[in-house]
């Protein structure tokens, strides 16, 4: 038994496996880039922490100041009347703010004022306390630093006296009996603040939390993919697997042998990386290194079992890698989520496969990994591996995963041929509307067609935008920007109703819109969307690019496209300038001068880089691809309507979305669609779209479909008397009537032009 398993495992080392397919090459390159990016940001972090640090804030250890936010009148009286000596030994700083629940600004204020704690009153504190029929108790929220254990005691001590004496004072002022009720409710919050003394420790904790587990994960994932995919799927592809199936080896032995082979393979990079990373970064405690090795081995084994299961289900290395790629990405996301985890996660996370492995590695490096956690992780990993191994064995008993039978595939080929020769399937098309010379080659049902055209853009956007989000997420995972970032998301989500999650996401989006890394990532994501559509048209449909309105087949065509693009830029700029003019003349806006400075020039430029593919991608998706295809089946009117409706819906999740916004977006979309039909290409609308968004956001400084930009040329605010129905409020002008007016004018002009042109074309 063992001999057979060893023999099969040994095969894993005898074949040349590396860089067999484009997928593996691509994955290798992206893994290296990913790791390099991590190190790049780490180096930035190191620089900031140790070399570029000019933070002169006083040492956190000897702080005695208490920050009092929104102090009510009763507190002043309480202090003035010197009822108690609570405040005699401490310095206090007063602060007024509306955002008393805002962790971030309080945190900042604590730092600025060198205070160790903050007492925050709600703005209507006195009102509620002294109201005659008091039903609720107002809140007093405190925040205190956790970085120094002394602060907690200091805080607790202070608050006990304060609560008691101030409470008594309030009760006596109100004239109620002391025992009857407590005047307020106390909520204590902990805030994290890092002093410079802690930064060395913090650096190590970032290394142990981010770099080491991540690098190990990527290395293991990659080597598991490379060898696992070659193990069964690769053997099937080469035709050597059947020879093994023919021998009297049990299926279980084949699976175990293959898993063992992959496992040994994945151990190779670990054997190099673990000593390098741990000792290299100064984690020299033997116990934690042993623990890291053990957890990594569990991870390797689990991944080997997983990849073998996937490998068995596929017939070639390429298809196996393609199936593994989503798993690969999901596991990377798990890493990113695990990285973001603040403090020690709940115990249950230590049991979860992958998540638990990640935490396990980082926790054992930090030296706070308990044996119980380790044992539970061993249990869950082994159980999942065993389940996967049994599942693989079952799969290997199924014909469809073992046959390398050509006669079977011949059979399917014959069926396909029969289908092709079936005259019913020879679809001769008479498109209802001829847009961009597109001729359908396949018949599609109404439902299938609508589902496809509606879900493809939604799918691509919802897939690619989160990926673009990952980049700044990693970027933000360093220094205190990360806490700020995570907390701002937290407060954003907590301050919204549950129904507004989409808006919360958009809020996050707005926060990121000021981040150059994110903007460039988004730009890339739009380029990818365009590439996907070009791929669909060229490779799947086998149509020329002119069928998505992008005729670029010859030099004159390219020149014409450039001219159209220029015209489109002018058009978009004129239209949005018209909107701006209307808003200026009706005194809705208050421009307050030039806002662009040298520092924001790179951001400004990256915005330009983003708006070009952004506009183009939406146009390619809707006007370029969907319009002619839907039009061929349902006619031009329906196609214009449907694409415009989808355009409106695509922006429905944005901040400040309203009915006027929907109508406006549909109107603009109708205008763009008709313009595209009119010009028989989409370069004009691509450019108009880009110019519109760019000028609206970065020239005039207004919101673009709910998204606020940064690095604007003009600083524009709404005037105090501005009317939301005209300006569009937080959605930007596209949510207001000004845009409706301009769009309707543009539509009318377009319709008139078309009318004139078609009249001219008529003979006689």
């Amino acid at each position, binding site marked *: 038994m063992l001999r*057979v398993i060893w023999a099969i495992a040994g095969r894993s080392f*005898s074949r040349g496996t590396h860089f067999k397919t484009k997928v593996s090459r691509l994955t290798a390159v992206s893994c290296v880039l990913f790791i390099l990016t991590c190190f790049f940001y780490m180096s930035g972090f190191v620089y900031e922490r140790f070399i570029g640090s000019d933070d002169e804030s006083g040492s956190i250890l000897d702080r005695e100041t208490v920050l009092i936010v929104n102090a009510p009148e009763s507190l002043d009286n309480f202090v003035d009347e010197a009822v108690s000596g609570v405040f005699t030994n401490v310095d206090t700083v007063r602060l007024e703010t509306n955002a008393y629940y805002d962790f971030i600004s309080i945190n900042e204020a604590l730092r600025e004022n060198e205070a160790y704690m903050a007492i925050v009153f709600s703005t209507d504190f006195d009102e509620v306390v002294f109201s005659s029929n008091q039903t609720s108790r107002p809140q007093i929220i405190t925040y205190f630093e956790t970085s120094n254990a002394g602060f907690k005691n200091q805080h607790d001590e202070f608050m006990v006296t304060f609560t008691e004496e101030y409470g008594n004072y309030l009760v006596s002022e109100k004239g109620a009996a002391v025992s009857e009720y407590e005047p307020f409710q106390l909520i204590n919050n902990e805030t994290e603040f890092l002093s410079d003394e802690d930064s060395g420790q913090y650096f190590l904790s970032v290394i142990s939390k981010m770099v080491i587990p991540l690098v190990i994960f990527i290395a293991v994932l990659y080597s598991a993919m490379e060898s696992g995919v070659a193990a069964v799927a690769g053997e099937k592809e080469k035709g*050597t697997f059947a020879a093994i199936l*023919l021998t009297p080896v049990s299926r279980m032995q084949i699976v175990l042998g293959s898993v063992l082979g992959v496992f040994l393979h994945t151990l190779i990079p670990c054997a190099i990386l673990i000593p390098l990373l741990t000792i290299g970064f100064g984690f020299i405690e033997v116990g934690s290194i042993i623990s890291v090795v053990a957890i990594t081995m569990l991870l390797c084994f689990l991944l080997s079992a997983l990849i073998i299961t996937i490998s068995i289900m596929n017939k070639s290395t390429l298809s196996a890698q393609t199936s593994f790629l989503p798993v690969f990405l999901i596991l990377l996301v798990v890493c990113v989520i695990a990285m973001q985890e603040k403090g020690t996660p709940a115990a249950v996370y230590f049991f979860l496969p992958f998540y638990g492995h990640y935490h396990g590695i980082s926790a054992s490096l930090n030296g706070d990994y308990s044996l119980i956690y380790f044992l539970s992780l061993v249990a869950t990993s082994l159980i999942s591996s065993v389940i996967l191994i049994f599942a693989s064995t079952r799969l290997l008993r199924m*014909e469809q995963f073992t*046959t*390398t039978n050509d006669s079977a595939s011949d059979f*399917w080929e014959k069926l396909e041929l029969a289908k092709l020769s079936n005259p019913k399937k020879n679809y001769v098309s008479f498109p209802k509307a001829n847009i961009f010379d597109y001729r359908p080659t396949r018949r599609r049902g109404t439902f299938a067609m609508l589902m496809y055209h509606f879900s493809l853009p939604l799918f691509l956007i919802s897939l690619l935008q989160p990926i673009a989000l990952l980049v700044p997420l990693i970027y933000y995972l360093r220094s205190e920007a990360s806490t700020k970032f995570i907390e701002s998301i937290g407060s954003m989500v907590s301050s919204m109703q549950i129904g507004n999650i989409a808006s919360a996401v958009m809020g996050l989006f707005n926060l990121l819109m000021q981040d150059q890394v994110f903007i460039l990532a988004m730009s890339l994501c739009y380029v990818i969307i365009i590439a996907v559509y070009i791929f669909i048209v060229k490779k799947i449909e086998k149509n020329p690019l002119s069928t998505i309105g992008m005729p670029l087949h010859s030099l004159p065509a390219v020149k014409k496209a450039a001219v159209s693009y220029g015209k489109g830029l002018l058009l978009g700029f004129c239209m949005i300038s018209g909107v701006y003019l209307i808003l200026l003349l009706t005194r809705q806006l208050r421009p307050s001068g030039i806002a662009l400075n040298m520092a924001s020039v790179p951001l400004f430029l990256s915005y330009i880089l983003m708006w070009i593919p952004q506009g183009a991608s939406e146009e390619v998706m809707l006007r370029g691809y969907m319009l002619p295809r839907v039009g061929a089946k349902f006619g031009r009117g329906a196609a214009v309507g449907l694409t415009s409706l989808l355009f409106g819906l695509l922006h429905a999740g944005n901040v400040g979305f309203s009915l006027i916004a929907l109508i406006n977006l549909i109107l603009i979309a109708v205008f763009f669609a008709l313009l595209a039909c009119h010009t028989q290409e989409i370069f004009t609308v691509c450019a108009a779209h880009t110019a519109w968004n760019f000028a609206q956001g970065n020239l005039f400084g207004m919101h673009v479909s709910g998204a606020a930009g940064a690095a604007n040329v003009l600083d524009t605010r709404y005037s105090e008397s501005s009317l939301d129905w005209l300006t569009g409020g937080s959605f930007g002008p596209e949510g207001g009537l000004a845009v409706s007016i301009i769009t309707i004018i543009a539509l009318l002009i377009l319709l008139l032009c078309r009318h004139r042109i078609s009249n001219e074309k008529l003979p006689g």
Partner: protein
Amino acid sequence: MIEVNHVYKQYRKAVNVVEDVSFSVRKGQIFGLLGPNGAGKTTLMQMIATLLFPTRGTITVCGLNTSTQEREIRKNIGFLTSEVKLDPFSTPDKLFDFFGDLYQLDRAAIAAKKEESFERFGIGPFAGKKIMELSTGMKQKISIAISLIHNPPVVIFDEPTNGLDILTAHQVTDYLRELGASGHAVLLSTHIFSVAEALCDELAIIVDGRIVAQGSVLDLKENTGTDSFENAFFKLYSEHHKE
């Protein structure tokens, strides 16, 4: 040694690829399956070799059922098909060791078998070379040697002379005849008439998944009333092939 009883094979409930096939192969007999490409020969042989399961009907090899006693059967058959290939990165030497391990033969037996086969097929000079560097004929000879490494009583060869030059093909047919003479049960599929005529004690002609005629070459010629084996086959084929 091989008993095939009313066997059907369908892929995903579609048309029968093999339909109601029955035949048996005795010890020491060379049985040939003859038919055009796509007739179902390979599917049938893969069912006998336990790579596929019959949709209906039973197959027994050495008295063992292919659906329930696969592992025992695999010890008793040597299967060769053009779809089972040798690892191009390996060498004949390593492959012998590898399959010897899988069949759990002891080292001495592997070494003896290696020596014998290398001698017999002239593999010796190429023992240390990578499979991908070898010629088609050499690969086929190595495949044959490896499929018989455990000395199985039942030998199933799917088109063993396919793509071979005349010299190598001759070597292979000679070896098959030898196997039959030494008491192995040999099942052979081919679409080459000369091989079928020269080698097989009994033949079954398969058209569209069904056996349309069975017997020795002489029987077939007589039954169809034709003068040559080739003509007999064409007559049978045109009678039974469905458009």
